[in-house]
């Protein structure tokens, strides 16, 4: 397939390349011109799916858009660590689908259990049956409990992973912290790559450590990590040393010691690592390996644990009638994050609108930015834009916070983090100022020196 970037596209518009896009669009002309509105079914109402549903309907109100999402309340994973640190109320993480309904999207709270790709029908556990012209999957992740020996789904009710899009695990973690004695040990098991939200577990470590430091200062947080390196490592390490030197014991795997878990014993409350280290704990947060959510496999688009996609369109390489966005895809080098899923969703929307609604199509642009709070008013960030190159999503314009940065900059990052949280929620769920009133500010005047 021809690869072109934004700059090349400008040249192509006046040339033969544009013809390819126009000609390939003819095959679906009948759908768009037919009497019934073209149908798009989206499965999964998180960062990818909610965004796709919102922007499809916004881009072409005539499209028949159905969003199938099992949960009535979306409890965001992003921002949830701040709840553990005491910087956000739990309720502020929870959001409904009323904005999307008001926008004309059919939101169906059912659990998708199968896709008949030949008949183009989605089936649900509740007996629902939804036909589609185009299908978009945004199933997020599922937990591979078996990758931590001794850990099971049942045990996760006692020692949660708190890593699915659900508020339950996070409130369980909070209860564990509240119940542990001052002077106790909190054990945290980190996942191996690839996993959802690369800095997430380390932001969580900071937030748990902050809770312990302020509420139970004699306690320890023992981290066991199967990896040799992790996201934003220099700045997280700086935070561990600066704020939590007496709390955090970081065990990062190296050439001598392997801190991958060989046995998790919930009864004895003990973890043993590959290289023989034993950790007795009072409370634990275990984050196992992950895979694409179930519906991806049921729809026949998984390759081992994840979904392979065409990075220019986010169409499944196994079935081009199915678009897949977000954490369930292999979108290297884009990280699995809510921001990425939102960005990928918009590319899919442009593809479908060009295809079904004959809208102008512009070259895909992808972006990710990710903030992590490490201590009060100390927030770090990482980001880049991405473009499809040689089958991958290559980063450009990357940036990451540096150790020793100015405190004012870190505080400003935190204000951005809070602002971004509201921004992406508004963007995903078609929220309006009327539904979430705060201050409506005038646009700022340009100045050379402001941040």
């Amino acid at each position, binding site marked *: 397939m021809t690869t072109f970037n*934004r*700059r090349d*596209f*400008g040249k192509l*518009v*006046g*040339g*033969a*390349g*544009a*013809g*390819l896009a*126009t*000609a390939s669009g*003819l095959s679906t002309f009948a759908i768009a011109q037919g009497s019934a509105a073209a149908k798009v079914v989206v499965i999964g109402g998180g960062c990818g799916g909610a965004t796709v549903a919102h*922007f499809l309907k916004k881009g072409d109100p005539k499209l028949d858009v159905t969003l199938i999402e099992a949960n009535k309340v979306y409890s965001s994973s992003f921002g949830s660590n701040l709840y553990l640190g005491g910087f956000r109320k739990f309720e502020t993480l929870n959001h409904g689908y009323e904005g999307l309904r008001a926008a004309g999207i059919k939101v169906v709270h059912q659990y998708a259990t199968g896709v008949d790709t030949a008949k183009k029908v989605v089936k649900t556990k509740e007996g629902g049956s939804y036909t589609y012209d185009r299908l978009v999957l945004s199933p997020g992740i599922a937990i591979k409990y078996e990758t931590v020996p001794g850990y099971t789904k049942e045990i996760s009710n006692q020692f949660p992973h708190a890593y699915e899009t659900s508020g339950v695990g996070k409130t369980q973690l909070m209860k564990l912290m509240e119940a542990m004695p001052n002077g106790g040990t909190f054990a945290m098991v980190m996942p191996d790559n690839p996993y959802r939200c690369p800095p997430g577990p380390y932001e969580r470590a900071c937030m748990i450590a902050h809770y312990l430091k302020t509420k139970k200062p004699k306690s320890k947080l023992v981290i066991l990590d199967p990896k040799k390196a992790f996201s934003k490592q220099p700045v997280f390490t700086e935070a561990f040393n600066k704020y939590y030197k007496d709390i955090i014991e970081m065990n990062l795997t190296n050439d001598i010691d392997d801190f991958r878990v060989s046995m998790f014993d919930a009864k004895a409350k003990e973890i043993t690592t590959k290289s023989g280290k034993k950790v007795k704990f009072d409370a634990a947060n275990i984050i196992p390996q992950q895979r694409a959510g179930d519906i991806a496999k049921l729809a026949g688009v998984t390759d081992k644990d994840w979904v392979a996609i065409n990075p220019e369109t986010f169409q499944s390489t196994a079935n081009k009638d199915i678009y897949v966005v977000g954490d369930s895809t292999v979108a290297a080098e884009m990280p699995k994050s809510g*921001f990425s899923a*939102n*960005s990928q969703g*918009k590319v899919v929307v442009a593809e479908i609108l060009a295809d079904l609604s004959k809208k*102008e199509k*512009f070259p895909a*642009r992808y*972006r990710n930015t990710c903030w992590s709070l490490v201590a009060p008013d100390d927030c770090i*960030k990482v*980001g*880049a*834009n991405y473009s499809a190159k040689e089958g991958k999503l290559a980063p*450009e*314009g*990357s*940036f990451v916070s540096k150790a020793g940065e100015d405190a004012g900059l870190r505080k400003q990052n935190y*204000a*951005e*983090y*809070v*602002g*971004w949280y*509201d*921004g*992406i929620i*508004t*963007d995903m769920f078609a*929220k*309006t*100022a*009327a539904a*979430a*009133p*705060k201050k*409506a*500010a*005038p*646009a*700022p*005047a*340009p100045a*050379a*020196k402001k*941040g």
Partner: protein
Amino acid sequence: MMPASQLLAFNLLAAAMLVGSVAGFASSARADTAKLVRYGEHLSQECTTCHRRDGVDNGIPSILGMKSEDFEETLKYYKTGARDNPAMVSVAQSLDDDQIKALGAYFATLVPAGK
């Protein structure tokens, strides 16, 4: 002589080339305002992950209703590094002048809630 299928493909390609050259959204000099705004609207989806589409500022400034000259000037400050927020520098450096113009034209058409 060309077989019918090839002839059809050739005609489609020729027609498409014509459509392509007339569309010309990327060349700002010829693009009318409506096209510019449409391109800006498409590009704006990247901005609204952070800058709220309802114009509310809760930590990230509103850019709704900003004058297009102001918008372009601000983005150029980021592009040159005169303003140094790394996230915005990264965004601005990924945009060419036509794209900045399109975005400025689009955001100028929006009115923040309550105004």
